[in-house]
C-alpha cells in the first residue's frame, strides 16, 4: 500500500511553509538592525527588500492554503525537506542583492552552504563585503547548525502532534528532555551561553592579534558562529591565516570540538555526570578515529615534506580536526593544501566522511553509526572464533548501556550507504565534468558531509551542473537523507494516485 496525502493535508503543509517563511522574514530584521546601526545603507535596503518579498510570499501561502488538519508523521518529513530548500532560496535574496555574486544560483549556493553549515563559498570580493551581509552569512549558518525547526519550535508555546516528525526529519534522533520544545530550548540555552563566552574569548584574542576593536568584535562573533556550528565560513578570504595567530587557531579548535559534541553530552557535562564523556561510544570512536588519522596523516606528510616536525604537527592537527568535526576552517591556503601528497588528502577525505556526534551541529556519517558498525563487525568476528554454544551479546554505552540490536545496526548501515553513494556520486559527476578523481572526491565529500574544505574546484567559474550537484549534496547530507528519501516517496505517491 502506498501512502498518499489528502488535499487537506497538502494545504496544511503549504500553510506551515508560509508561516515559516513569515518567520524567516522577521529574522531579516536582525542583520537589518546591524546595517542601520553601522550606517550601511545599501545593505539595509537589501535586507528590507528581502524581508518584504519573503513576508509577501509567506502571506500569500497563508491566504491561499488554509490550515485544515494536523500533519501526519510522513508529511512532516516532506515539510522539513521543503523548508530546507525554500528558506535558503529566500535567504539568498539579500546575498544576491549585495552584488557580490555572479548569479542568483551562486547566491543560493552560498545560502544553502550557510544553512547546512557546509562553508563552501562562491562569493566574490569577500574582503569588501559589508559587516551586515557578513553577519547574515554567519547568522544563517548559526540558525542552520541549530536546526531551523529547532529555532521555530523554541518559539512555539504548545507541542503539535507532528512536532516529533519535524524534529526527527531534521536529522535529530535524540531528545534530551521529555518534550521536544524543552529539548529545543535547552539546545538554545547551551548555545547562547557558549556564544557569549566563546565570542568574548575570540574578541579578546582578535584584539591581541592587532585587529581594531570593531573588527575584532565582529570577527569574534563570526568565528564563534561558524566554529561552534561547524560551518566554516570566515569573514575574510585568507581564512584563519588572516590572523597570523597560533592562540586564535587553538581557540577555534576548542570551539569546533565543542560544536561537534552531541548536545546530550553537553547536558551530561552541565547537569549530570561529566564522566559520561569518557565512557560514551561517540567520544571513544572519535578518539580512536582521530588518533589513527592524525598519525597516518603526519606520517605521509613527514615522508614527503621538508617542514619542521612542529609545523607538520600543527598543520596536520588542524586539518584533521577541522575535517573530522566538519567545521572547514583552515590555516592553510588552497595552494598549500593542493601541494600535500595524495595519501594525506585521502586521510582528510576519510575524516570528513566520518563526521562528528549524532545530535550535534556536524555533518557526515556520524560517530555513533561508525561505532555501531564497528561493534557489529567485532560481534560477528567473535561468532566465527568462539564455539557455537557460546552466546554473546555485544553492548555499547551512550548515556546508558544498550544491547547492540540488529535494528540499530541496520539503520546505521542504511545511512552509511546513502552517504557513501553521495560521496562517490558527486565525485563521478566531477570526473565527468573534467576534474581529476581525487580532488573531485575531496570536494564531493566536503559538500555532502557539510565540511567546507576545498581544493579549489568550488569557485564561481565551476560548471552549473556541479554547482547544482553540490547544492543537492549539501541539502541531502544535512538532512541525513531521511527526509529526502521519505519526501521522494510521497511525491511519487502523488503521481501514482
Amino acid at each position: 500500500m502506498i501512502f498518499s496525502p489528502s488535499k487537506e493535508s497538502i494545504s496544511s503543509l503549504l500553510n506551515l511553509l508560509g508561516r515559516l517563511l513569515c518567520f524567516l522574514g522577521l529574522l531579516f530584521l536582525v542583520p537589518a538592525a546591524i546595517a542601520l546601526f553601522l550606517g550601511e545603507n545599501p545593505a539595509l535596503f537589501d535586507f528590507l527588500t528581502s524581508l518584504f518579498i519573503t513576508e509577501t510570499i509567506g502571506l500569500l501561502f497563508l491566504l491561499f492554503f488554509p490550515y485544515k488538519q494536523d500533519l501526519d508523521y510522513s508529511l512532516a518529513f516532506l515539510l522539513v525537506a521543503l523548508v530546507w530548500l525554500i528558506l535558503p532560496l529566500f535567504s539568498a535574496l539579500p546575498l544576491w542583492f549585495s552584488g557580490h555574486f555572479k548569479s542568483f544560483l551562486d547566491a543560493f549556493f552560498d545560502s544553502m552552504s550557510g544553512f547546512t553549515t557546509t562553508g563552501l563559498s562562491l562569493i566574490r570580493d569577500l574582503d569588501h563585503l559589508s559587516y551586515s551581509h557578513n553577519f547574515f552569512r554567519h547568522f544563517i549558518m548559526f540558525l542552520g547548525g541549530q536546526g531551523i525547526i529547532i529555532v521555530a519550535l523554541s518559539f512555539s508555546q504548545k507541542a503539535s502532534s507532528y512536532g516529533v516528525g519535524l524534529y526527527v526529519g531534521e536529522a535529530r534522533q535524540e531528545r534530551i528532555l521529555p518534550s521536544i520544545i524543552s529539548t529545543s530550548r535547552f539546545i538554545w540555552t547551551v548555545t547562547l551561553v557558549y556564544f557569549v563566552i566563546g565570542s568574548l574569548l575570540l574578541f579578546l584574542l582578535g584584539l591581541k592579534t592587532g585587529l581594531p576593536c570593531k573588527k575584532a568584535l565582529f570577527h569574534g562573533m563570526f568565528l564563534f558562529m561558524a566554529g561552534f556550528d561547524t560551518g566554516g565560513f570566515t569573514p575574510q578570504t585568507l581564512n584563519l591565516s588572516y590572523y597570523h595567530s597560533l592562540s586564535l587557531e587553538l581557540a577555534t579548535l576548542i570551539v569546533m570540538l565543542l560544536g561537534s559534541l552531541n548536545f546530550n553530552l553537553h547536558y551530561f557535562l552541565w547537569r549530570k555526570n561529566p564522566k559520561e564523556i569518557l565512557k560514551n561510544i561517540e567520544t571513544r570512536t572519535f578518539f580512536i578515529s582521530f588518533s589513527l588519522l592524525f598519525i597516518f596523516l603526519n606520517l605521509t606528510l613527514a615522508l614527503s615534506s621538508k617542514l619542521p616536525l612542529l609545523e607538520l604537527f600543527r598543520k596536520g592537527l588542524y586539518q584533521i580536526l577541522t575535517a573530522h568535526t566538519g567545521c572547514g576552517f583552515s590555516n592553510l591556503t588552497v595552494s598549500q593544501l593542493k601541494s600535500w601528497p595524495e595519501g594525506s588528502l585521502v586521510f582528510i577525505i576519510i575524516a570528513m566522511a566520518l563526521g562528528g556526534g549524532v545530535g550535534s551541529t556536524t555533518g557526515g556519517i556520524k560517530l555513533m553509526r561508525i561505532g555501531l558498525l564497528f561493534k557489529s563487525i567485532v560481534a560477528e568476528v567473535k561468532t566465527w572464533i568462539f564455539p557455537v554454544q557460546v552466546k554473546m551479546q555485544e553492548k555499547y554505552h551512550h548515556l546508558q548501556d544498550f544491547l547492540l540490536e540488529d535494528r540499530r545496526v541496520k539503520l546505521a548501515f542504511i545511512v552509511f550507504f546513502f552517504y557513501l553513494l553521495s560521496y562517490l556520486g558527486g565525485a563521478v559527476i566531477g570526473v565527468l565534468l573534467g576534474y581529476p578523481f581525487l580532488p573531485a572526491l575531496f570536494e564531493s565529500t566536503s559538500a555532502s558531509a557539510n565540511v567546507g574544505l576545498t581544493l579549489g574546484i568550488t569557485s564561481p567559474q565551476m560548471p552549473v551542473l556541479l554547482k547544482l550537484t553540490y547544492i543537492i549534496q549539501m541539502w541531502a547530507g544535512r538532512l541525513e537523507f531521511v527526509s529526502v528519501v521519505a519526501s521522494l516517496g510521497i511525491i511519487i505517491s502523488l503521481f501514482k494516485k
Partner: protein
Amino acid sequence: MRKIFLLFLLILTNMPCLQAGEFIKIKELLAKSSFWDSKEVEVKAEVLDVLRRKKGSWINILDQGVSLGVWVPKEVELPQIIYLAGPEERGDLIRIRGRFYFNNPRHLGQTMISAEKISLVKRGGKFSLEPSLKKRRALFLWALLFLITGTVYLIRNLRYARGTSKT
C-alpha cells in the same frame, strides 16, 4: 645554434620574473608557488589590515580578490596607512618588495612575503554608502505589495474571527 637561440627566446618570454617593470599578481604567486618560492618579488596591492606585533607588523594585502600576508620587520619603514580595504573603504595601494615563501617555517609555515621595502602608490578612499535608485525602487515596490497582502490577510482574519464569534 638556431635551437639554442629559440630556447633562449622561449625562456625569456615565459619567465615572469624577467618581464621588466611589471608587478607580479598574487594569483600568479600562488598558482606558481613552487617557482616563486624563496625568490625576490614585487607586488602592488590594496591594504586589508595592519596587525602590529612586538617584532614588526603583519600586513594583509588584497589583489584582484586574492589576499596574502606580508611580514614587515621593525627595521623596514612602513608608510602611513590610512585607508584599509573593507565595506566602507578602498584600501591604500602599496608596493611591496620582498621575498616570497610558500611555507615559511619562521612564521607558522605560512604562505607569505617577507617585506624588504614598502612604499605608498595611491591613497585609498571612502565608498559611497548611498543605495542606488534601483534598490530604492525595489524596496518601495515590495513594501507596497507587502502592505496590500498584509491588509487582505488581516481583513480576512477579522472576518473569520467575527464569523466564529457569531456562531
